[in-house]
């Protein structure tokens, strides 16, 4: 059901399911998978369009998966079902009509392993769900002006594959996070801050690069298009490239 409706059952998710194992001293398992539909794009107004992944990512005890394509959806779903921890399985509503090659046989995509969707040496773009596709469109446009973007799809926000993101940023020196959620306390702020902090810690000094974010505006989700589009992503990349040039 719509991720916007999670408020009516949030106690069961974040006070009960997420905490049983910890509160009961490791004696409990809560192997539940909650499927939910997220994201804007249907012009369905403020109560059917939200991108609340960060709300669940914030809660210790929960795992959060958000596949960007049908192949990943199958592998992540099988992993989620076999997992003994509670999983929020977030399916972007604008991806149901997309297709991908999906094998008949069972396979698992482990949680916490990002997918490098596109390789490039000039800038790292982290995007999730529908934004992976939008970022790919932007990358093609940027390639025309000589900027090669590397696109990373984390696949799961909890756990988050920080290592793959850092490896890419070590190479490119620039990070753009594409997120269609609200700007404060979002996946974008989290990935940017986590990457920056971790890299600074390793180098023993402040990073020489600055992450850029492309959240949507700060308001309830309007019925018109406000989520990051190709042009906005390309603009953020150009800003990052110019900053570190």
């Amino acid at each position, binding site marked *: 059901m719509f991720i916007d409706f999670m408020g*009516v059952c949030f*106690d*069961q998710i974040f*006070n*009960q399911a997420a905490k*049983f*194992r*910890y*509160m*009961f*001293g*490791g*004696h*409990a*398992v809560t192997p539940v998978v909650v499927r939910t539909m997220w994201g804007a794009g249907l012009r369905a107004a403020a109560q059917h369009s939200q991108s609340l992944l960060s709300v669940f990512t914030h809660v*210790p*005890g929960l*795992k959060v998966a958000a596949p960007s394509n049908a192949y990943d959806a199958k592998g992540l779903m099988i992993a989620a079902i076999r*997992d*003994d*921890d509670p999983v929020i399985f977030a399916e972007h509503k604008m991806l149901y009509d997309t297709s991908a090659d999906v094998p008949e046989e069972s396979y698992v995509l482990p949680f*916490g392993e990002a997918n490098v969707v596109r390789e490039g040496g000039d800038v790292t773009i982290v995007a999730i769900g529908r934004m992976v596709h939008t970022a790919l469109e932007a990358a093609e446009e940027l390639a025309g002006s000589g900027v090669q973007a590397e696109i990373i799809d984390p696949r799961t926000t909890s*756990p988050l594959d920080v290592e793959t993101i850092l490896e890419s940023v070590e190479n490119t020196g620039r990070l753009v996070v594409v997120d269609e959620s609200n700007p404060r306390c979002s996946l974008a702020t989290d990935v940017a801050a986590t990457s920056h902090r971790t890299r600074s810690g390793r180098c023993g000094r402040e990073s020489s690069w600055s992450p850029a974010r492309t959240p949507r505006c700060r308001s309830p989700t309007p019925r018109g298009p406000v989520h990051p589009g190709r042009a906005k992503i390309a603009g953020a990349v150009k800003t990052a490239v110019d900053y570190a040039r």
Partner: protein
Amino acid sequence: MTGTLPTPTSQELTPDQLLDAYRVMRTIRDFEERVHEEFAGGDIPGFVHLYAGEEASAAGVCAHLDGRDAIASTHRGHGHCIAKGVDIVGMMAEIYGKSTGSCRGKGGSMHIADLSKGMLGANGIVGGGPPLICGRALASKHKGDGGVAVAFFGDGASNQGTTLESLNLATVWNLPAIFVAENNGYAEATSSSWSVATDDIADRAAAFGMPGVIVDGFDFFAVHEAAGEAVARAREGGGPTLIEVKFTRYFGHFEGDQQLYRADEVANAREKLDCLKRFRANVTSGGQLTGTQLDQIDSEVAAAVDEAVVAAKAAPKPDAADLLTDVYVSY
């Protein structure tokens, strides 16, 4: 379908059943009286909410339950734990936050659980338990294991959406579920006569298509009889029941509560209504048990509770490193 049952007697229980019931109630009372004393000493972390005065509810319901069955509890959960067979040594250590506790010290008073005993946890969320037992009852129904699930909750929780949704779902799914509304008159400091829209909580059962029963919560036999009917109906596929148990809690909402919201109704309850006194009078006057038998249990329970406190105080605290474990099975 709401009704008040005639007061039953002890005649239908065997002497062993009566002894077990008395032992459970006496253990709860002594456990809670002792936690009350020890909490004042300052060594117990967090909050504690004591069940003294309400013993007949947990004992009367859980006397019908076995290994197939599960219960969900409340912030006032010690009595439910004891009645469902959770070891008091582990419980006391848990309340003290020690590594030998039921939950290795990570839960405390409000989260004591023993899944191996079908005790799904005390619960820090008012109205947290009823949804849990719908899930457990649904699992038993699908497995066909004959199990029933019981949610104990308070008059405050009876107003929560989660409780009302659970009552509805239990009937819609025809679940082997029993909802025990323990109405002690106050949700924290708010009187149930003010906060509950109906005269009685049991009145709400009709709205959800299930039987609703009111029982005197100071009377073990009244609770036992009502719960027996409900458990039998649930096991036979007859669906859920709402039982409202009315009584008075002997201590405040939490230890430290000044109780400015209520007159001194506790002294009267302790003197004239107390479940342990009434039980003793009932079984000894009827000749099923002797006072000596009950005195013997009193002595054994006092020693057991004392041992639990001594063990809890002597037990090691969890290592600091343990604070960050058990968040996930794997991550």
